[in-house]
């Protein structure tokens, strides 16, 4: 079956613009995660969604970052007023449930803020 997909694969934007990154999880997976991988850094957790529960937003670095998950499936990560330090690869992952199952990762979106 299809794995986790993300779009776009690459995004170049100018400082101060808003961007939206999309994630399509594996069908039937109720848990969805966003991570960020910056140059020279490991992967850092941003946010996760589990079913209809309130998301865990504890990893979002600032209030310029937000995420939604509509209908328990597709998720959008929005970064407002982008800064150069937002340049990174943004990875999405999904699992059948939070806590019990392997997280399957998407290919990532490489964001470059000029």
């Amino acid at each position: 079956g299809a794995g986790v997909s993300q779009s776009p694969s690459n995004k170049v934007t100018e400082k101060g613009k808003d961007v939206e990154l999309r994630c399509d999880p594996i069908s039937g997976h109720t848990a969805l995660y966003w991570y960020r991988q910056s140059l020279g850094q490991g992967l850092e957790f941003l946010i996760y969604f589990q079913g209809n529960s309130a998301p865990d937003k504890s990893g979002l670095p600032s209030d310029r970052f937000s995420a939604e998950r509509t209908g328990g499936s597709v998720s959008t990560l929005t970064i407002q007023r982008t800064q150069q330090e937002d340049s990174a690869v943004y990875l999405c992952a999904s699992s059948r449930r939070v806590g019990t199952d392997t997280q399957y990762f998407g290919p990532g979106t490489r964001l470059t803020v000029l």
Partner: protein
Amino acid sequence: AQRVTQPEKLLSVFKGAPVELKCNYSYSGSPELFWYVQYSRQRLQLLLRHISRESIKGFTADLNKGETSFHLKKPFAQEEDSAMYYCALSQGFQKLVFGTGTRLLVSP
């Protein structure tokens, strides 16, 4: 605070040599530990998790709570093992905390 440390950015070995990728962690509870691998131009994927106690592609990892380590080992490295390896810790079986990764390069 939960933390995962991978002290080596790059590990270079010859084919057939033993490999050990180091991982140390700090965590106040009972950790769930993983190794993820990313081959060139592929997505990040799970290699193994400590609760499974299994060997994948010849790799094993043992959780040592006394030394707070979860080193990844393989007795005889192969060229196809060249990849980026990430050690990760699960907080309450939820979000993953990753190390900064070790690039393994296996030369012929």
